[in-house]
């Protein structure tokens, strides 16, 4: 196709940017760069078809619909699933209405969340934790019993802790789009909805481990890493390996000289671009399995960066290593 597609203009919080038609407000905001903190996204995942629109954390105010029809949109819109129009003006962090609504959404998301961060493996890299810190209230107004589910093992390597789930559906899309047969899904409805296999079934597929990486909270965790270390005590390193199933490009999270866990590489919006196979993720835990290429860049705001290279190595680990 030789014809050039004409770009369209959108202004977000005063930053004007030109994007291709069909771009969503959220992706346009992500393209702006350093001057703009894009809307938070708990369910949208750019590489997963059909994701987005559900969590409502990315609500923004459209103060001008387009050059052609400048009327503002009557309601806040989900920026992850609303496409920009030429001349559109969007208020993201400059809209009191949107910030107020997001605060509401955070409260809703935390309503039934156990707030068990001190014992949750996701703590430190949890998007809900970040979201609550940036947009939430300091206390909860919910005084009723929280929803609870039993923890279940779904397969040899994955723990499902449904109580923490925010029903973003990402793991379902992942299984649909990355594996050849989906075994788990959303069961029941309303606030009784849950991620489940219905009958305790193993999620057994070469790429199913990626559900752990796409999970924004600690609902799906890596059993080979459970309770081994807090993430902020680990040293994440970029590493590669020869793999016939996937790119072999991963991050190995080191505790001392041990590989505590392996994950795919996430971009600055927390999204995996190259998914990795189960073999790389769960079975390659020896230094000899990997070619370490350098330290993984982690955002300076993250607690993982806070005591990055000075992480105290638990004494028992040193002992074991020296043994």
């Amino acid at each position, binding site marked *: 196709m030789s014809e050039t597609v004409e770009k369209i203009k959108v202004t977000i919080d005063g930053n004007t940017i030109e994007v291709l038609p069909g771009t969503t407000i959220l992706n346009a905001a992500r393209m702006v760069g350093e001057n703009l903190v894009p809307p938070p996204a708990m369910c949208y995942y750019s590489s997963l078809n059909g994701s987005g629109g559900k969590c409502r954390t990315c609500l923004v105010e459209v103060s001008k619909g387009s050059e052609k029809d400048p009327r503002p949109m009557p309601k806040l819109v989900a920026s992850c699933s609303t496409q920009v129009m030429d001349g559109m003006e969007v208020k993201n962090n400059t809209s009191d209405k949107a910030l107020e609504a997001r605060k509401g959404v955070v409260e809703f998301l935390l309503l039934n969340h156990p707030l068990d961060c001190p014992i949750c493996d996701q703590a430190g890299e949890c998007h809900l934790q970040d979201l609550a810190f940036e947009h939430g209230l300091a206390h909860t107004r919910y005084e009723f019993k929280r929803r609870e589910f039993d923890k279940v093992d779904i397969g040899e390597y994955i723990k499902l802790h449904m109580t923490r789930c925010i029903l973003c559906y990402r793991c379902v899309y992942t299984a649909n789009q990355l594996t050849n*047969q*989906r*075994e*788990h*899904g*959303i*069961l*029941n*409805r309303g606030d009784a909805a849950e991620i489940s*296999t*219905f*009958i305790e079934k193993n999620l057994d597929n070469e790429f199913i481990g990626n559900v752990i990486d796409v999970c924004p909270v600690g609902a799906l965790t890596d059993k080979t890493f459970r309770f081994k270390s807090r993430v902020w005590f680990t040293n994440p390193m970029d590493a590669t390996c020869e793999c016939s199933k996937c790119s072999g490009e991963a991050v190995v999270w080191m505790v001392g000289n041990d590989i505590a866990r392996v994950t795919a590489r996430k971009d600055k919006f927390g999204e995996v671009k190259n998914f990795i196979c189960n073999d790389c993720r769960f079975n390659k835990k020896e230094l000899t399995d990997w070619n370490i290429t350098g330290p993984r860049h982690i955002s300076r705001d993250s607690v993982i960066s806070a005591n990055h290279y000075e992480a105290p190595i638990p004494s028992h680990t040193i002992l074991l290593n020296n043994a």
Partner: protein
Amino acid sequence: MEQTKIEFPPHILEEVNRVIQMFPQDKQKSAVIRVLHIAQAQFGWLSTDVMDYVARLLHLNPIEVYEVATFYSMYDTKQVGKVKLEVCRTGPCMIEGAEKIVSYIEKKLNIKDGETTPDGIFTLKSVECLGACGYAPMLQAGEAYHEHLTEQKVDELIEMYSKNNSSVNYMGQ
């Protein structure tokens, strides 16, 4: 408990095929909702085996059937009685005394809302609006609507269904 073989008899299979053919050729997933009704009528409730059977019939992943079966409130994924007495409890029915009807049935059958009688005949369940607001209070048993309920009418219904309950929940075909 006697074990029913999870397989539709030929005349039901014929009905299932009629339902499948209501939709374009590659869209047979559309038939799942009605086929699940038929299956529930045939086997009493939707056990995992029943749902797996439906999945095979429609060439679906079992999880796709579980997802649907657990979403809709008419499906029972746990065993229920032969006759489900579903009393509407919403708005207009409430003003017209639905709660009294529920507690009357509870007392009469000596079960609580949501429970099944020990003989496995009746299950009592209060449900949301059934679209009979002008004829309240009401209950649904199988496919039948019973409206303008009174205690006397409930007595009669329970007596009737105690005697004849073989095909009450027969739905979907």
